[in-house]
């Protein structure tokens, strides 16, 4: 493999290096790459939104299918922009009311199912060490968050077990976070060494 001759790979590689230059110290190259990312992400997002949403959900039904019912959600959506005008900003409450009402209605039955499955998950069907740890972990952690009694004596000891479980969870989350960040760095180095410099295959 040889060094890339694609201008896009070069632009991508140089922008990667510009972002990583921040690790040395803040500099104009980093700032340029950062602002470019923000601008392009928003621009690209709007173009995807236009083609996949405005065209498919508004333009096509209205113009091709003559489905004029689309005007109702379109108007409701447009009312959201009334927030930019002080005298008419109250109109934005109408679509918000729809969102809150429909969202709550949709969420309540599903949330119960969601929660009950979790509760069911703490009711083991077999006696194993893993299941025992789950039961102890759930009960002691819940007791740690029970603030109607002072955490002294027996309750204090149990809640200390609960905080130990919480700390272990934090440790696992931190370990996974490190793994995620290193993975992203590996991905960029693979790109630089492979696609750009052609050192590795």
């Amino acid at each position: 493999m040889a060094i890339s001759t694609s201008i896009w790979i070069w632009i991508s590689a140089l922008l990667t290096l510009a972002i990583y230059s921040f690790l040395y110290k803040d500099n104009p190259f980093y700032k340029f790459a950062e602002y470019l990312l923000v601008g392009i992400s928003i621009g690209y997002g709007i173009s995807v939104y236009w083609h996949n949403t405005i065209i498919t959900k508004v333009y096509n039904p209205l113009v091709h299918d003559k489905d004029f019912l689309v005007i109702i959600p379109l108007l409701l959506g447009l009312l959201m922009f009334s927030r930019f005008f002080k005298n008419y900003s109250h109109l934005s409450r109408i679509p918000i009311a729809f969102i809150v009402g429909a969202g709550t209605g949709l969420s309540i039955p599903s949330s119960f199912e969601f929660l009950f499955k979790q509760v069911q998950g703490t009711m083991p069907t077999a006696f194993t060490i893993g299941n025992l740890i789950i039961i102890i972990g759930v009960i002691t952690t819940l007791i740690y968050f029970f603030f109607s009694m002072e955490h002294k004596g027996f309750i204090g000891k149990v809640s200390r077990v609960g905080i130990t479980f919480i700390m272990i969870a934090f440790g696992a989350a931190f370990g996974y976070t490190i793994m995620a960040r290193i993975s992203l760095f590996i991905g960029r180095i693979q790109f630089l060494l492979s696609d750009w410099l052609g050192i590795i295959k």
Partner: protein
Amino acid sequence: MKIFEKLSHIDRRFIYILIAIVVIVPLLLKPKLPIVPTKPVKDIYDYVENLPQGSNILISIDYDAASMPEQQPFLEALLRQCFRNKLKPIMIVQWQLGAPLGTTGLEKIAKECNAQYGVDYINLGYRPGYVAQMVGIGREIRDYFAVDYKNVSIDSFPIMRNIHNYNDFALLVGLEAGATYLLWVEYAGGRFKQKIALALNAVSAPDAYYFYQSKQIIGLVGGMKGAAEYEVLENKPDLAVAGMASQSYSHILIILFIVLGNITYFVEKSRKKKEGGR
């Protein structure tokens, strides 16, 4: 003891250089480290492997470029497995900036496997709405995806002829960088009993294992490590497997930093205590 004093004031850029070295050197030398697939990953692989030919798999792209090294290898391995087993991936996108990543992966693997667009696979593109869309697919997918990502009517594609709602999908696979997976589990899983498999960024993975334990999802692929396990199962080692040695060595280095940092902290604390006592 001066060494501990120096260590407590070490320039963080030395740490960055060391991390860069332990990431770059294994990528160049390519040492072989064993990668053993874990049960949550193997469960997804086995489930997909045992699906009857022609089954439809709904793949949701819910990540963007910031998660590409973690999600893209799994997407490609999963697509290879789908095409090898004559399963039909139907791709949708919930994160608009993920649309080109999903399309790139799908087109690459489809070409590699000689799959035909509209017959063996389809890309329906991005639609907004999250919950509304997830619930809507439960009734009729055409309410949200009347056209594909190129604005062509989905009824013109043979693959979509008998697909209407979740009943027609053998599995929903969510490739997730944020919290969209919670909505999939709650609505597609809870309300419509859709079988769900998740591939999460490593940052989010610990928050989703309890869904695996409660059987709300059939399996979980966590970060690049999970993707590497999937590549091993698919017997096609690629970018994720190539990155695992760097991942392991950098973890060892970080553990050393943590141990050294703590020793330095306690030594310095004891020294200051002694000096204060004099």
